[in-house]
């Protein structure tokens, strides 16, 4: 702990709570509550009826590239793509017509540790939507022709992805930081694995991963009446068993390795870089303070109106001719680990410029760890509050939040709980969390593109701490 923290007057840490804070709490507590029910087979239903004319119904499945191996890398996203290709009851054409008839929109995404299917629809169509989603998830056709066709799509997509430098950088960062674990695998697989995955393997994957204990149905919006949804879930998913025909999926490790990965290609338009420390899992007590700080470091790019006059001191310094195009702080929480760091794009033409960018960002991290003032904390928390509450304002945002809470921690925080946790944060608790997870911790770095001027590992590592009492 720094000397400044020790001598900081205690009185300023907890400024007296105003009466409005209590009122906020009351309002949040009177908001429509989310109800959670667990079916007999472990399938969980969480719903929140807020009376809006629209509803988002999502099924979130714990599966993804961190459960895959080198051989079947990409199978989760392969499966997710194939589920659109029709079921035993409906062809792809029928599926699309039916959804279009409802005016609903079905989206899905596969990450490293979850797949989400969600439908945005009118609130009166809850029953039909659940019927369609259940059909997609439970009776996919997965015929050979569709598999072959999708294989080509995915291979082309691999090519495309290489042009998405940000994605490439984050994939490389995961690969090096979590080398030897499942988190190193790419969500979209490799050429070899996509070429070799068979329809049987995909079927097997679904059988082993889409088990009720690994699934959450999350509905938010009008018509998301809990009793009705529980009934629907019982009807469509109640008969799913928890028997694993193949092997029980395991997440293949969480070991973080301090390391660097550089992929130099001077034909890329810039240097894309990420440095990260090992973050915390979603349910970790320090997840919130770290998210608050990450949000406070924020992001900036050359299209922003502010530069030297930016409100943040590190932005003011970063724009001083170091060839920085933009940066963004990130905070990724998986179930039991995470990555916390910064991503930036710079022209990378000069070694000193790049090292200066690193130093300025790291200096700000150290400031947050050792010298945070109570006044700053107020601002940081408000920034996070804005971001968080606007994110959960939409049906989809709230449905994702509820599902994530259940999948990752097994219980559900209400917005009032989050607000309570936020208002309990202080300079001290944030500083302590930063000291536990950021200050003088090993880092993983990834550089993609024009990385000639990318500083070596030890250079960046030694800037994770400074002399202090």
């Amino acid at each position, binding site marked *: 702990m720094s000397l400044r923290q020790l001598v900081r007057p205690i009185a300023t840490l907890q400024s007296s709570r105003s009466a409005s804070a209590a009122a906020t709490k009351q309002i949040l507590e009177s908001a429509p509550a989310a109800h959670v029910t667990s079916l007999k087979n472990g399938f969980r239903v969480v719903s929140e009826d807020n009376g809006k004319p629209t509803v988002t119904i999502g099924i979130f499945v714990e599966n993804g590239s961190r459960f895959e191996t080198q051989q079947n890398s990409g199978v989760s996203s392969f499966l997710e793509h194939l589920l659109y290709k029709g079921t035993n009851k409906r062809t792809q054409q029928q599926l*699309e017509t039916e959804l279009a008839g409802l005016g609903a929109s079905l989206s899905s995404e596969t990450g490293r540790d979850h797949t989400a299917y969600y439908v945005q629809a009118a609130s009166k169509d809850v029953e039909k939507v659940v019927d369609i989603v259940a059909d997609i998830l439970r009776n996919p056709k997965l015929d050979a022709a569709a598999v072959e066709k999708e294989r080509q799509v995915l291979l082309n997509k691999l090519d495309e992805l290489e042009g998405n*430098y940000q994605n490439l950088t984050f*994939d490389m960062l995961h690969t*090096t930081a979590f080398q030897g674990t499942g988190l190193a695998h790419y969500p979209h697989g490799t050429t070899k694995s996509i070429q070799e995955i068979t329809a049987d393997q995909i079927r097997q994957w679904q059988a082993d991963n889409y088990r009720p204990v690994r699934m959450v149905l999350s509905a938010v919006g009008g018509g998301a009446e809990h009793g009705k949804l529980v009934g629907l879930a019982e009807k469509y998913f109640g008969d799913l068993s928890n028997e694993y025909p193949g092997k029980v999926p395991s997440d293949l490790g969480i070991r973080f390795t301090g390391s660097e990965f550089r992929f130099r290609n001077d034909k890329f*338009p*810039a240097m894309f870089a990420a440095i990260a420390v*090992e973050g915390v899992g979603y349910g970790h007590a320090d997840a919130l303070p770290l998210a608050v700080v990450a949000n406070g470091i924020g992001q900036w790019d050359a299209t922003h109106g502010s530069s030297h006059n930016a409100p943040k001191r590190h932005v003011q310094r970063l724009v001083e001719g170091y060839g920085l195009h933009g940066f963004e702080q990130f905070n990724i929480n998986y179930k039991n680990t995470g990555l916390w760091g910064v991503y930036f794009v710079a022209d990378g033409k000069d070694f000193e410029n790049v090292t200066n960018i690193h130093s300025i960002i790291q200096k700000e991290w150290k400031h947050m760890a050792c010298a945070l003032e109570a006044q700053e904390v107020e601002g940081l928390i408000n920034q996070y509050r804005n971001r968080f509450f606007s*994110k959960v304002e939409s049906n989809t945002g709230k449905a*994702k939040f509820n599902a994530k809470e259940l999948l990752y921690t097994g219980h559900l925080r209400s917005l009032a709980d989050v607000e309570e946790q936020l208002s309990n944060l202080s300079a001290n608790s944030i500083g302590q969390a930063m000291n536990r997870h950021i200050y003088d911790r090993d880092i993983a770095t990834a550089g993609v593109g024009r990385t000639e001027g990318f500083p070596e590992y030890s250079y960046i590592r030694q800037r994770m701490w400074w002399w202090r009492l």
Partner: protein
Amino acid sequence: MGSLTRSAASVKTVVGRSSKAIAPLSITSSLGSPDAAIDHKTIDSLQLATEKASRTGLFVSGLAVKGVNVTSRRHASTYDVPYPNFDECRRKSTLDAKVASRDTEPERVAFTRAVKGVAFGSFGLWGAKEGVQLLLYSKSMSMATRALAAIEISMNDIPEGTTKTYEWRTRPVFVRHRTKAEIDREKAVVVSELRDPEHDDVRVKRDEWSVVIGVCTHLGCAPIAGAGEYSGYYCPCHGSHYDASGRIRKGPAPRNLDVPPYVFKGDTIVVGEEEK
């Protein structure tokens, strides 16, 4: 929810409008590469690249060169480069990927921390000591004064019945080798009659040797040894008379001559050193 947007490579919409468009970092997309990358992924582009390379040589212009490796579609992705396995370089405790690195950390860093602790700790202690000493020394006597802190006087240099003067801490010190007669005389003085009553026994450590500071207690003149009415010391300034024990007997001085700290060491008297 960072991972939802970022690591999701695929967000698709079957029908309806996607609520979320993947917007690449605006600046990266707006950047035009000055030396536009040649896309080496199609047969044509590979042939083009080969030709371009071949025609720039000194002797090869005009030659028809067929590119190698361009006859079949190549599917090479950055993602296909396997990440090397560094297990050989790992410590045993970190071989198991299921154990979080934080859990094995205390054991891994113990030795380094100990070595660093000892090295930097001792260096730090030494530095702290130096610092404290520096501060303390600045407040202590100067080196020149300290060098004169104690003087050694050889007793053989002073024959019986004579007094010699030495300088000790910028002041004169009289060392008197007293005769038997002087000793008897001084011992016999009635203490109660003195202005500053002190018995001779208190003022000397050995009867033969009287050591006093030669500064008159009146106004600080230097008395003359072996002079005055009591054949001790006489201050010429205002006429103070001291006896052979350095006691004031007559004149304006209020006190006896001061006795400095001194010890006998073999054949020498060390003035400035306390008796241990």
